[in-house]
């Protein structure tokens, strides 16, 4: 059997204990990991062998659940999807920026969850249809119109990357607005008008200045920047129809 290669990994992890600390501080760890390992493996090894008090979230270890997002050398990344071999020297691990730190690498996602709810991220049917009339059918082309945006795993890396969200916490933000776009684009949905009350506002798409960082860091290739720019265009068309065309209705 081939022996798996190991390497010594140095991590600098931001620690914060809400019961005793007023500030966060870095703690250095050295741990031996498999060459093929990811940052999450190193954290798990530290927790198992060196320091059981270290806190971080994770679940699937396969870039699907979106739980293990953290800043790795200043870049928002899923720690289960970030290979140790790509780094030289000390790897700096911090909780996602722009979110309050609950403890160590665990952040409070409450603000994002509340905003996600506000955009009504579910199908609002155009009209009630009795079950006896059968299923809602959709062509492959209709599916492709929103499929990419439905790949979001709610990992919040885009919020950590978005400077607008950091500077203006009222901003609904990339992932939640992208969810609004995903349902607006769905042929079975009729809820766009309701969502516009959140989307077409200063805190909605108009807070976005198209930095594009959200799309660069998205591990699911959702491209929130694209969704938001498209919603700016449709919201502008709404405004023109309402204000500049006689008889134009909202």
């Amino acid at each position, binding site marked *: 059997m081939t022996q798996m290669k190991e390497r010594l990994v140095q991590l600098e992890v931001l620690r*914060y204990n*809400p*019961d005793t*600390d007023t*500030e*966060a501080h870095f703690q250095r760890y050295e741990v031996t990991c498999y060459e093929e390992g990811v940052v999450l493996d190193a954290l798990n090894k530290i927790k198992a062998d060196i320091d059981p008090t270290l806190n971080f979230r994770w679940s699937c270890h396969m870039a699907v659940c979106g739980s293990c997002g953290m800043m790795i050398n*200043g*870049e928002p990344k899923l720690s289960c999807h970030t290979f140790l071999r790509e780094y030289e020297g000390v790897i700096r691990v911090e909780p996602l*920026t*722009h979110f*309050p*730190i*609950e403890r160590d690498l665990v*952040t*409070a996602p409450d603000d994002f969850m509340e905003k996600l709810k506000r955009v009504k991220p579910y199908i609002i049917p155009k009209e009630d249809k009795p079950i006896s009339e059968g299923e809602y059918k959709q062509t*492959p*082309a209709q599916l*492709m*119109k929103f499929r990419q945006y439905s790949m979001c795993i709610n990992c919040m890396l885009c919020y950590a990357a978005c*400077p607008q969200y*950091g*500077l203006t916490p009222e901003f609904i933000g990339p992932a939640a607005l992208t969810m609004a776009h995903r349902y607006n684009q769905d042929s079975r949905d009729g809820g766009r008008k309701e969502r516009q009350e959140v989307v077409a506002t200063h805190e909605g798409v108009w807070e976005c*200045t*198209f*930095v*594009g*960082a959200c*799309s*660069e860091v998205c591990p699911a290739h959702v*491209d929130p*920047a*694209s969704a938001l*720019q*498209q919603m*700016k*265009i449709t919201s502008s068309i709404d405004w023109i129809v309402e204000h500049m065309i006689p008889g134009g209705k909202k």
Partner: protein
Amino acid sequence: MSRRPLVREVPPTSWYFRHPRYLRYMSREITSIFVGAYCLLLVVGLQRLASGPTAWEGFLLGLRSADSIVFHLLALAAAVYHATTWFNATQKAMPIQIGEDFVPGNVISGAHYVVWVVLSFAILFLVGVF
């Protein structure tokens, strides 16, 4: 259980030094200052033109100064950078779906470059360069 999450402030005036992508973004935003200044210069030129031949000649003389030439070169570079980054971004803002497939992004951006070149030549033709 009491919750005391630690809130970290974002530095309001230096956040863009945190990552090269933010610096790229800010460099693009700053180009608008040059584009705006050039628009002002055009307005001033129109005003001088309306004021009579002497004022207009003075304006043209001013344009030939070394400072003016440096400004024009900077404004041109800023405008080109702004335009190219804008054209490259258009593929995100206006994706085109045909059937189940999307038109490749570089076709959408490329079309903008083509229109840019055609319009530029049309303007040069109208002002009598050819």
